[in-house]
């Protein structure tokens, strides 16, 4: 839906991500706001933003493999773990700098993701989903039982540094994480309008038909897994150097489920949806965290601290409600809102 009076006069305009000068204004001011946020945001908010942005990167990858390419994956947490451990091993044991380790860990996670995505060549739907769950457990088990990953002790990667400047606080990490998130978002947004993106969508909508029409299924399915795991790996690397301690207890199946939940709530096949989904779930989580002590006081039978249990229930219920009432997610609502805003005061 284009705003009234805006026409695409050339192909370049038609496929442009940012079309009007208003877009530019909004984008740039949002970016500025994002970057000066640490100046006035509270410490807690900054750390929340960091974890939000990392989740956004992971879910962006999931959006590409699941939302665009239609291959359901519950393995995102495991691939994030691979990224985190790769980055830690590179920086601690091999002495790489963070800046090289960051893309490398993405590539390693992506490469392993290709192996993990291999079952998708033969199976799909919930068979594939179960296979990715299996991959999750196998990966975590391997991490726990290999010597190089620090086994059960975990690893302690150093915070990134640049020319002697240490990014050792959350405020400093914030800039790195936000920049990476911005680049990754741009790349993902861009992907959706290229040949690759269209091939993904073809595979999602009907893989056999796509194959008949000349989409190389194997190549594109594996590519989708590579990209998704690349995203997860980069997010894992950021996570590792932000938290500065990694062990496999940080990457559980519940996290993987949470990412998929974010995707459902945000809306499949939409980049803004990723942001909505991540925000929704995280805010829900925080709200539950804050309210549960009050609830526990009001209702003693809930026990000492019902936060985790209530958080699970709230998350599950949110997904249930969205699946029933808004299966296309918040992104769909957002589109409706945008359209009605542009058309106001007319109905259509």
């Amino acid at each position: 839906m284009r705003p009234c009076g805006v026409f695409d006069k050339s192909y370049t305009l038609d496929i442009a991500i940012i079309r009007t000068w208003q877009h530019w204004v909004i984008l740039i001011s949002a970016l500025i706001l994002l970057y000066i946020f640490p100046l006035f945001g509270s410490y807690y908010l900054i750390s929340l933003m960091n974890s939000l942005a990392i989740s956004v990167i992971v879910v962006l990858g999931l959006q590409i493999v699941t939302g665009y390419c239609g291959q359901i994956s519950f393995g995102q947490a495991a691939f994030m773990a691979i990224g985190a451990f790769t980055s830690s091993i590179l920086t601690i044991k091999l002495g790489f700098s963070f800046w090289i380790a960051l893309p490398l860990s993405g590539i390693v996670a992506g490469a392993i993701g290709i192996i993990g995505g291999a079952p998708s060549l033969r199976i799909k739907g919930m068979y594939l989903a179960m296979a990715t769950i299996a991959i999750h457990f196998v990966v975590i088990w391997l991490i726990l039982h290999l010597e190089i990953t620090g086994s059960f002790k975990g690893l302690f990667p150093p915070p990134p540094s640049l020319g002697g400047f240490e990014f050792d606080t959350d405020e400093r990490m914030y800039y790195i994480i936000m920049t990476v998130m911005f680049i990754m978002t741009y790349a993902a947004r861009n992907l959706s309008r290229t040949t690759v993106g269209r091939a993904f969508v073809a595979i999602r909508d009907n893989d056999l038909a796509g194959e008949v029409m000349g989409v190389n299924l194997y190549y594109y399915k594996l590519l989708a897994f590579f990209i998704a795991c690349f995203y997860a790996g980069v997010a894992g690397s950021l996570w590792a150097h932000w938290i500065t301690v990694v062990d496999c207890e940080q990457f559980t199946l519940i996290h993987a489920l949470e990412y998929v939940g974010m995707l459902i709530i945000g809306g499949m096949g939409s980049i803004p949806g990723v942001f909505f989904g991540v925000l929704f779930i995280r805010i829900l989580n925080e709200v539950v965290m804050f309210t549960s002590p009050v609830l526990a006081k009001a209702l003693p039978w809930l026990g000492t601290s019902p936060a985790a249990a209530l958080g699970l229930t709230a998350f599950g219920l949110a997904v249930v409600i969205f699946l029933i009432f808004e299966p296309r997610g918040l992104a769909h609502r957002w589109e409706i809102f945008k359209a009605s805003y542009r058309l106001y005061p007319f109905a259509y």
Partner: protein
Amino acid sequence: MRKKCLIFLSIVLTICLSMVGFSSSSFAKEKSVVYLSLADYTGPIAGLNVPADKGTEDYIKDINAKGGVDGVKIKFIGIDTRYDVARAVSAYKRYRRTPKLLVVNSIGTGIARAVGRLLARDKRVQLTPGDGEFQAHLGSTFIWGPAYQDAFAASMDWVMDDWKSKGKSGAPVVGYLNWDNAYGREHLRGGKQYAEKLGIKMLPPEFFPPGTLKHDVYLTRLAKAGANYIHAGGIDPTPTNVIRDAYALGLTKKIQFTTGYWGPTALGLSVHAKALEGIVNYSFFLRGEDTKMNKTVTDLWKKYRGSLDKLNGVYGMGIAWGMTYVGALKIALNSVGYEKLKGVDMYKAYQGITGFERAGIQGPCAYASDSRRGSREIKIYRVKGGKIVPITGWQKTPDAVSLHKF
């Protein structure tokens, strides 16, 4: 339908937001300090944390009711981490800039390591279970009692005594069965060396994932390897479950089971008293029948929780944490006063609290500038007739941490 749903959601949201406002505004203006507990209240180690934190909370409540420590009230915050490191880290970050947050009790070895680094940077005191690595490295982390390996070593002493008292010759064979994670392996880092020094034959350790429902495989393997003693690790109800399976296999008659601090508590005992009969348990805090004799513990329990039947020994440990905290707070307040009070002062106070007595719940405090151990004494208990009764008095634990190169 959709409209209804939206209305419902918005109502929920407004309620939640107002609650947030309410809860944040309830930070009192009076003088107060904060004690943060990052504990797993609903996951694998909840059986330990819930009663323990109840103990701390009740003790703090009691102190506050009596006017606080020199007029300073203590605020207890318990966060459910669900044995999830990421959640724990983000929970700590939420409170990281809270003024007068002095001590963080992070329960769980993985959590302690992750949050420990942040706490060390913030110069705050961290309390954590018996992870010997902290003793070896001496950060700003203090462990609750003796290190796991120390206590394990002490139990090996008991094993030798028991072996000899039964009139058997040769070396006893000891099996070790624990969780497949950092905590599960801690006992052996030093503990194994100590046992071997004593001449005990240690079987290859067995590890199983937390939450395993059945432990037959591991138990039969250890039994087949000829174990005379098996140390069943994990946190209640895990050790109870292990011994339940051993009982079902008929192993409890042939093999003496020993368990660590988090071995069968009142929780496990209430569920599988028959299977647990005769097993040995070592502990740095009073448990079982001993707890019921301790007036401090029983008074507090009666005051806030009611009937004594459900008293769990771990509750006493929680009280001991509270006592140590209050003791250290007194020292810190004396030296710098409330206004200037910071994490560092508390750190110094914890170092200077050597020999502090905690109503006999635990041995005298062993915190010092070169020691992170909460105490050095353990007591050995045995389950008899469905009750946990002591079979020794307080015994000093050997130093097994130093036997391992960390």
